Every structure is written in C-alpha cells, then in structure tokens.
C-alpha cells in the first residue's frame, strides 16, 4: 500500500473511485467543479480544505444524501467496487456498505444510546445474534457508550455523541465509512481519542475511511493519503507524509511557516485566495 496515488484507467476493479464529478444545488449553484479521488480498500484517506471547499458535498455525493438537500451530481461518475453508484438511493448504498457519519454528529436525540446504535443496524437482515455481537463489538471500542447505554442521546456529551455516531455507522457493518469533520467542537484530547479509535477500527476491523477534516494536523497524522480541496476543486493530493512536509500545506493548513514571506504576486492562485481569507 505504499503507492495509493490515483492511477489512470477506468477504475473497473477499484474500491471507491470518484471521477470528475460536478455537483449542483437547486439547479443553479455549482459546488463541485470536477472532483476526482480514489479510496483504496482498507485505506484511510483524508479530504482537507477550508469551509465551503466542498468536502461535505463530496462525501454526500458518494452517500447520495445530496438528493435530500436538492443537490445533484450532474457530471462525472462514482464507482464502488466497479459499479456505478451515482443514482443509488442512500439506503441501497448503506446495504452495499457505504455509510456516512454526518458533520455535527446527528444523533437521534430522544432515543437512548443503545436504540441509536440499533437503528444503525436497520438495513441488516442477518439476524438478532449477529446484531447483538456487533453491539458488543461497538461497546468494546467505545466503552463510554456502554456506561451510558440507557441515557437519551441528546443528554450525552459532544464527545460521546461523536462516538455514538461512529458506533451507529459501524452497526451497519460498512466496508467504508465517510466520516465528516469528526473533530468539530471537541477538545483536542477527545479528537485524539476518536482518531485513535478510527485507526484501530481500520487496522483491526478492516473498515476503510474517507474523512473530511479541517484539522489538517490530526488528519494527516492518521490518514495514509490526502486530497486538498479548494472552492470545489482538488488542488493537491499525495501521501499524508508528503503533504505534511509540503511547504504550502505547512503554511496554509498547518500554520507553520518555514521560509520568509514572499511577495503575494508569486503565490499560486489557491495560496493567494487563502491569504485573502486569512
């Protein structure tokens, strides 16, 4: 798995390939302008970028939660295990093994923690015992959830809710989890804890992750490969290590400036934009 760069070809036998998609909301607002990326089986891939760069939209295009928000993939293709999935319904995709954990956690507030988890297994047809054993598995990763299994999810802490939403996704037995902004609103220690669990899930359970993050630092430490999005385009991609050593990434996303400031004129488009926003 040393080289995870997207290779050429039509992606027939690849795990998850997004090629050149355009997404339009409400028939007028163009949000993604040709995003391509590839997620290898068993990989952890990070989608990085600022607010409004198109990270969430990319994830929702894959899970097809876009349609509920009047969004639409108008160009390009999304293939999962060789099959085009652009027109599939979200519940069909969950059954095929693609589950999204939405930004802002989205737990079922009035349901208990355990009911939340069980709802995650809604699409499964492999029986009560299998679901029960997965419930135990989730509890073994998220011990805090077990302690709070009978409380209403709305009354648990932010960290617990984030764990719950990841645990709920796991209950569907996914092969890939699209994890949107898991660090949002959490203390650094908790962020670390959650990423540790992601890593363990990836290594021990073989779950593939595609995660969108603004916290570039953490994301690049745990991901193997990264894509940087800006205003609906991929502007850079590479191994996590390469990215975190890249001067531009360091300056704009990691907040470390190695060299002296150059003139604005020399800066590439995406960097200039960044300065303006900063």
């Amino acid at each position, binding site marked *: 798995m040393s080289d995870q760069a997207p290779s050429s070809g039509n992606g027939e036998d690849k795990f998850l390939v997004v090629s050149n998609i355009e997404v339009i909301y409400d028939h007028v607002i163009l949000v993604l302008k040709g995003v391509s990326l590839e997620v290898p089986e068993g990989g952890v891939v990070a989608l990085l970028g600022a607010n409004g760069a198109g990270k969430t939209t990319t994830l929702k295009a894959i*899970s097809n*939660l876009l349609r*509920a*928000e*009047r969004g639409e993939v108008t160009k390009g293709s999304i293939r999962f295990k060789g099959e085009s999935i652009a027109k599939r*319904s*979200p*519940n069909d*995709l*969950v*059954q095929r093994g693609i*589950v*999204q*954990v*939405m930004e802002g956690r*989205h*737990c*079922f*507030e*009035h*349901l208990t923690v355990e*009911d*939340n988890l*069980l*709802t*995650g297994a*809604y*699409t499964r047809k492999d029986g009560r015992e299998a679901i029960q054993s997965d419930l135990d598995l989730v509890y073994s990763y998220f011990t805090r959830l077990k302690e709070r299994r009978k409380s*209403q999810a*709305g*009354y648990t*802490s*932010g960290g617990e809710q984030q764990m719950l*939403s990841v645990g*709920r*996704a796991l*209950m*569907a037995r996914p092969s890939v989890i699209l994890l949107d902004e898991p660090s949002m609103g959490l203390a650094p220690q908790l962020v670390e804890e959650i990423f540790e669990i992601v890593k363990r899930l990836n290594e021990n359970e073989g779950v593939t992750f595609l995660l969108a993050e603004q916290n570039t630092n953490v994301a690049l430490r745990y991901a193997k490969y990264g894509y940087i999005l800006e205003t609906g385009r991929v502007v850079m991609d590479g191994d996590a290590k390469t990215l975190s050593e890249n001067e531009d990434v360091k300056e704009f996303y990691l907040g470390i400036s190695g060299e002296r400031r150059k003139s604005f004129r020399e800066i590439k488009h995406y960097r200039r934009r960044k300065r303006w926003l900063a």
Partner: protein
Amino acid sequence: MSGEALFFLEVVISGLMAGVMYALVALGFVLIFKASGVLNFAQGVLALFAALALYDFIAPGGWVDDLFGFTFPIWAGIILTVGVMIIVAWLIERLVLQHLVQQEPIILFMSTIGLAYILEGVGDMLFGSDVKPLDIGIPQGASDWLLDNYGLYVEKLEVFAALTAAILVIVLAVFFQKTRIGRALRAVADDHQAALSVGVSLRTIWVIVWSVAGMVALVAGIMWGSKSGIQFSLSLIALKALPVLILGGFTSVPGAIIGGLIIGVGEKVAEVYLGPYVGGAIENWFAYVLALVFLFFRPQGLFGERIIERV
C-alpha cells in the same frame, strides 16, 4: 350519591367518551406529524373513508352486496378495510408526498387539504353521500349494571370505544418501543437526515406511518359511525383535533390522549354548567378558546417534545 353529583359524573363521563373520539383522531395526526413533519389535514377524512369502506364490505345494501349479492363477515370486512387503508397510504405517498418531499411544510400542509377534498369527493362518488348506520355488533344502549347499582347512565358503546382506544394505544406503544420499524419511525421523527444516513428509507417509513394512521382512522371511524351513523360531517372532527393537538403537543402520543380527554370533558362541562348563562352552544367553540389560552402559556403543549439543549 346525591343527584347533583351523579349528574356531574355523567356529564364528565360523557365528556371523557367524546374525548376518546377526539383523541383517536388526534393520534392519527401525531403519528404522521412526528414521522414526516406533515400536519395531515386529511386525517378526519381518512376516518370517514375507512368507515365508508367498511360499511360497503359488510352492510346489506353496500357495494359488495349490490355487486356480488353477499356481504363479508365483520372481521373479514375489517381486515379488508385495513388493506384498503394501506393502499390509500401507498397511493398518497406515490402520487403526492413523493413529489413534494423537499418542499416547505406549508406546501405539504396545503397538499393534505387538497387530499382531504379529493378523498371526500372520491368517497362521495364511490359510496354515496347519504348517512349510513354502521352496525358491527358493538353493544348499544345504557349499561344496565351501572344504571341498576349506581343510578349512573353510561352508554355501552362509549365504554367499548374507550377500551378499544386504550388497547390501540398500548399496541402502538409496544410497536414504537419494541420493534425495528418502530425504532426507525422514532429515529425519523428525531432526525430525517440521520435516518437517511443509516439507511432508513423515508418513503417506506411514510407508507407505514400513513397506513398506521389509516388504521387509527378506521377505529375512530367505526366508533363515530356506530354512534351517529357514517356521515360527511365526520371529516370535520379533524378540526376538533387541532385544539387537542395544541393542548397535548403535536409530537406526543400521550399528549393526544390526555388532550382529547381534557377537551372532551371541558366542553361538556362548560356546555352544561356555563351554557345556560351565555345562551348555549359553548361546545362548538370552547375547545378553540382553551387552545388559544394554552398557546399563550405553553406553546409546546402539555407533552410536547422537550427541545434538548445541552448547556
């Protein structure tokens, strides 16, 4: 017991029984509102439609009798009517809701008003508009036992209706709390998006919830129909359900029940004891005034879902 107190008790009981009817209709509202955020104006018409369908399956002189020369036994008629209500729910999802999913709540609300009139029209066309007595063998008349022992006049039908409503609520509660579909329904009520993300199909859920509302409507239709005949004014009790919902909270099943009972008792007591002073007919507007007062002090209703806010 003195005559005075006895009379009061009778008024309260008859109010409770009317309240059960309101509660049954309000229950249908709550189910659909929770699952889809749609205020279903057609709930009253669903009750009418269900009662009409049932009548035509089982009554001599109904459709089935006219066409085939026989009538179904009551139990078969009820099962068939449940089937009809499921088909109606499916059609509503297919023809109306599916196309309006992403629209504003007010547009969905208006579509249910349209739906109410369409259903009423179709019901009129299919079943005719005359008042039909519905008799499914529910005991009629006063309970002799209560009359003999306590001098209390209580309709058997009303007791029967109350018991049925209680059983219905228990069945629904178990369905919601213990089954996979029930859990999914509660999940959808909480967060549509999250429900979608775990693979719950909203379309399936909507068909289910409209079917369940249709069955609740059938029970309401049977009770009203047995009491005062199946007539088109039945669809107007949907309007009575609105104050019940404001009182009980739009998202609460127990709220619909308690709200229904309060409105039922309140308007009967007001009618009997206050009516003479203001010239009567309090029953027609009492519920709405009560609801208005309630809106001032507790807009989420008695049992409206508490908005969870972590501090």
